[in-house]
C-alpha cells in the first residue's frame, strides 16, 4: 500500500506531503496553505507581511495570527536554545551575502566593511502582544531558521490523523503510518519510524557560498557560525522542537553538541 503524496517547490525548497486515508483534495489544500504562508512570511518579497513588519521597526504593528504565532515561536526558540537560535539576525545574514533568494546567488558581502557586533537578546528587540508586535529600530526578523518545522507541525494538524509533512527536510510525522509502525524517514544513514514526532537537520552543506560564508549566523558574533560540524539531525516531539535542537547543537560545535543531544533529543551529526 502506498500513501497519497504530493511534492512541490515552496519556502525556497522542496516540500513533500504524504497522507494515509486523507480526504480527497486535502494534500492540494495543504500545498495551497504552505504557499500562502510563504507569501506572508518570506523576507525576500517586499510586499510580504514580514517585510512590512521589518520596515515598520519602532512602531507597534498589527500582525496576523500566523505571524504573531511565529514571532512568539521565535521568542520560545531563543529561550530554550539559550539565545543561540535567534530570529533577529536578519541584517547579519544580509551582511554575509544572503540578501536575496539562494537560487539568485549571493549578494555583496559586507563582512569586511561592516562592524558586526553580537546581536542583542531577542526579547530586547522584539515585543509581542495579542494581535500586534513591535521591533526595535535597526533590527530585522528572519523566520527562515524556525518556520519550516513549525509550519510542518501546523499542517500535519490540518491534514488529518495519519500524515507526514516534510518541508525542506524539517518534518512532522503524525499517526501510525501505513503499517502501524510509524512513518519511515531517512535519518542519519538509517530509517526510523516516526509516530507523532518531528525531525530536522541543520547544517551548512547547502546554502553556503564562499569561504566560511553560510546562512547560519551565530548571534554571539553576528557572523556565520564557525563550527566543527557539517550538519546535525535531531528527532523531537515536534518539528519545531527538532529544528531548534538541531540548530542549537550545530552552533554549539561537536563536543558540546554531543552532551546537548544526550540531554535533549536523539540526534546524529556529521563532521566535515
Amino acid at each position, binding site marked *: 500500500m502506498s500513501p497519497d503524496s504530493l511534492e512541490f517547490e515552496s519556502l525556497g525548497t522542496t516540500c513533500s506531503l504524504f497522507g494515509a486515508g486523507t480526504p480527497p483534495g486535502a494534500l492540494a489544500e495543504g500545498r495551497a496553505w504552505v504557499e500562502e504562508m510563504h507569501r506572508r512570511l518570506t523576507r525576500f518579497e517586499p510586499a510580504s507581511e514580514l517585510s512590512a513588519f521589518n520596515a515598520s521597526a519602532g512602531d507597534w504593528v498589527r500582525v496576523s495570527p500566523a505571524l504573531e504565532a511565529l514571532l512568539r515561536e521565535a521568542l520560545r526558540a531563543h529561550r530554550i536554545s539559550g539565545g543561540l537560535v535567534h530570529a533577529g539576525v536578519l541584517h547579519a545574514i544580509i551582511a554575509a551575502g544572503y540578501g536575496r533568494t539562494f537560487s539568485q546567488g549571493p549578494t555583496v558581502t559586507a563582512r569586511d566593511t561592516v562592524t558586526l557586533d553580537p546581536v542583542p537578546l531577542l526579547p530586547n528587540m522584539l515585543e509581542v502582544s495579542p494581535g500586534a508586535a513591535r521591533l526595535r529600530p535597526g533590527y530585522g526578523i528572519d523566520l527562515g531558521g524556525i518556520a519550516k518545522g513549525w509550519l510542518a507541525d501546523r499542517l500535519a494538524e490540518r491534514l488529518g490523523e495519519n500524515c*507526514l509533512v516534510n518541508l525542506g*527536510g524539517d518534518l512532522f510525522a503524525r499517526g501510525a503510518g501505513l503499517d502501524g509502525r510509524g512513518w519511515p524517514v*531517512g535519518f542519519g544513514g538509517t530509517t526510523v*519510524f516516526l509516530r507523532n514526532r518531528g525531525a530536522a*537537520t541543520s547544517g551548512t552543506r547547502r546554502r553556503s557560498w564562499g569561504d566560511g560564508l553560510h546562512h547560519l549566523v551565530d548571534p554571539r558574533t553576528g557572523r556565520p557560525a564557525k563550527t566543527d560540524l557539517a550538519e546535525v539531525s535531531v528527532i523531537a516531539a515536534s518539528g519545531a522542537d527538532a529544528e531548534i535542537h538541531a540548530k542549537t547543537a550545530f552552533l554549539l560545535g561537536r563536543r558540546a553538541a554531543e552532551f546537548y543531544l544526550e540531554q535533549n533529543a536523539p540526534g546524529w*551529526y*556529521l563532521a566535515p
Partner: protein
Amino acid sequence: MPGWVLKLAACLLTGVATAGSAGYVTSHLKSPSAPLNPRVVASGPVGRLTLTPSIRSSADQQPLTFTSVS
C-alpha cells in the same frame, strides 16, 4: 640594420625560448602520486546516532522521505 642580423636574432630568440620551455617542463613533471588538494581528511558519516527505545529503526526499510539540510 642588415636583414641577416634580424634573422639571426629571431633564430636565437626562438632557440632560447624552446630550450627554456623544455627545461621548465622537464623539471616540473606532474607526479601521478601527488596528494589531492584539498586533502580528504575524512569521508562518510562520523557521527553517532543515539535513539531512544521509543523510536524504532531499520536499515533495510526504504524511507519515504528524508530529513536533510534545506
